């Protein structure tokens, strides 16, 4: 795979030591993309850990009954999978540790590949399970961790879980190339909503943001917090509370179409910014989001998703084949400057020039953790401090951080001007031995 230029592994490693591969839908090439990254990471001699947000590496697709590509692991690799999937491994493996999570396929354990081979990875069916599996593999020595997405689910790319995200798209998504490009463009726009900068002096948060919280921030930086059982059920009520002086509304839970429609109905979209924790909380049909944007509203995230690459798969499960180069060109043009790869055809677009410090990200202004790549085969320096994205900060710690530094420039490990909002729902991971 390694040509004269940068490959997808270079791009991923330049963003940090963890990646989530998420798909636009099933059969868009997540597993093949993951395989290309894992192969590159293994070639560089970096100890790797793999988890799945759903299930992958199985022989046959559970819906289409078509054969699927396996996940190939190098010797010594760690992977988190359900007990009954581990039994299907075609490589010698040993259980190393157990998480507290269980799925319909048994307990979620961490295994080590004693020799290279093919395995099935799955059974981490929640963000908490994925988080615990990743943290456990880190402690067991993985210096690079990859999470394979589940079907079209995107929760695994939450910044609380991983530093970098790769989005797989392909012909499975729509009947025509234009359809694939259009839907991919929309998803990328949603996934990469800009980072929200807390206005200077705003007392936006004097306590941690829970899933039930809604915070209204006015033009003069003063704020009001209300607690609702769920914005899903109280969309109209919350929209009614958006007085003229409110410029920003911060949601602790999900942003859905119902809330955006309630805002539009009251004519309050113009000049309003809706802020979510991260883009995985945005669960809106494209039409609602388009109408909100057209009406002058904005959506932003406290913790931006760092999309480092998009991959394209020109084949659909029903046998349709799009032109690989044309599809890559179309997608690359739409998602520029994000690099785009067809890892099977070995072609790439939008690559940063050699010597640039990694891919330019539209939604990220000079974040840390980027390092030069130059196609260097050695483990990048970023791997020396892999824990940055895996803070297990408790709410208490967050309160202190927010009280001390909300709106303060250059404060705390969350970077300049960024708010200390809990990234996810993490709690200190628990683990046990293998019974």
């Amino acid at each position, binding site marked *: 795979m390694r040509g004269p230029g940068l490959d997808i592994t270079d791009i991923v490693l330049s963003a940090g030591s963890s990646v989530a591969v998420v798909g636009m*839908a*099933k059969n868009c090439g997540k597993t093949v993309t993951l395989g290309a990254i894992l192969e590159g990471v293994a070639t560089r001699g970096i100890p790797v850990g793999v988890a799945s*947000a*759903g*299930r992958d590496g*199985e022989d046959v697709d*559970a*819906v289409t009954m078509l054969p699927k590509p396996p996940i190939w692991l190098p010797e010594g690799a760690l992977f988190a999978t*359900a007990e*009954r999937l581990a039994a*299907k491994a075609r490589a010698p493996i040993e259980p190393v540790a157990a998480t507290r999570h*269980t*799925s*319909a*396929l*048994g307990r979620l354990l961490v295994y080590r590949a004693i020799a290279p081979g093919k395995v099935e990875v*799955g*059974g981490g*069916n*929640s*963000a*908490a399970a994925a988080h615990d599996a990743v943290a456990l593999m880190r402690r067991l020595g993985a210096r690079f961790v990859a999470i394979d997405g*589940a*079907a*079209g*689910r*995107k*929760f695994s790319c939450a910044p609380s879980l991983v530093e970098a995200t790769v989005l797989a798209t392909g012909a499975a998504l729509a009947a025509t190339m234009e359809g694939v490009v259009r839907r991919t463009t929309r998803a990328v726009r949603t996934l990469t909503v800009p980072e929200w900068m807390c206005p200077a002096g705003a007392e936006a948060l004097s306590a941690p943001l*829970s*899933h039930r919280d809604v915070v209204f921030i006015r033009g003069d930086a003063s704020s009001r917090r209300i607690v609702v*059982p*769920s914005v*899903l*059920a109280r969309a109209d009520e919350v929209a009614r509370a958006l007085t003229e002086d409110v410029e920003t509304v911060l949601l*602790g*839970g*999900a942003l*859905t*179409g*119902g809330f955006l429609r309630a805002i539009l109905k009251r004519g309050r979209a113009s000049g309003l910014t809706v802020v979510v924790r991260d883009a*995985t*909380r945005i*669960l809106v049909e494209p039409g609602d989001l388009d109408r909100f944007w057209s009406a002058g509203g904005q959506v932003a995230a406290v913790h931006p998703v760092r999309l480092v690459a998009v991959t394209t798969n020109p084949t659909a499960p029903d046998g349709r084949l799009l032109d690989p180069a044309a599809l890559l060109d179309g997608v690359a043009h739409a998602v520029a400057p994000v690099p785009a790869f067809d890892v099977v055809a070995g072609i790439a677009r939008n690559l940063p020039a050699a010597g640039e410090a990694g891919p330019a990200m539209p939604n990220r202004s000079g974040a840390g953790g980027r390092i030069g790549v130059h196609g260097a085969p050695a483990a990048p320096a970023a791997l020396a401090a892999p824990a940055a994205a895996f803070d297990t900060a408790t709410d208490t710690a967050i309160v202190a951080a927010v009280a001390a530094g909300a709106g303060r420039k250059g404060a705390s490990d969350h970077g300049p001007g960024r708010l200390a909002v809990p990234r996810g*729902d993490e709690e200190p991971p628990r683990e046990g031995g293998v019974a």
Partner: protein
Amino acid sequence: MTVSGVNLDLTRVRPYGDTLDDGWVQMSLTLPVPSGPEATRAAEALCEKMGLDDVRVVYSRDIAGTFTFFVVYGKCVHSVDFTAIKVSKVNMRHMTFDEINEFIATCIGRKIVVVAACTGSDAHTVGIDAIINMKGYAGEYGLERYPWFVAYNLGSQVPNEALVAKAIEVGADAILVSQVVTQKNVHIDNLTNLAELVEAEGIRDKVLLIMGGPRIDHELAVELGYDAGFGPGTLPSHVGAFIAQELARRMGVWAPAEKA
């Protein structure tokens, strides 16, 4: 293994028609062509391509002048290795209505709250009604009849937002979602969106997320991040026993017997 005095090779199992291992099957199909000898020949040719030998169209009938319905007999040339078949099942002990209620009373000590719905565009409530409604299905009562369950059946075409809002409002222990319409795999998108919403609202660790429907199984459940997936033939007591046992296990008050 011996069946009716004949040795059966479980690594090469074929359909049973009149005698063991004869491979005979009966199937029906519809072709979008007018009824006639050409249509019959086309049906035979197609069945041969499907791996049937000795194909006989035993019945055919015109449908609306442009389609033809067929019933076909044929000998299947293929076999399956039954010993290599592995199906995912949830690790649970089957219990009766009374056993489930007693289990909940003893181990959990409070009523279990369940919300259920057919989501998205799906208006086919036959599955969810069989599991939830008082009158039940196949001689078993639905969860509404269980004194230790509080069941909310939201009905059909329920948006995922409304289902999750209700689950939060009533503090549900389990969300049951039924998907009967699966054309163009629309159920995958619906189920995916629901799981994302449950995660985004911060209640994923507080609820059991359960799917059900004719094309649902535990494999799909695991793939989409659900706790269980119940397919055709599921009875209310299967779902009730799973919810009770899994909830008790997560509360740390009960552990399933080790499986071999």
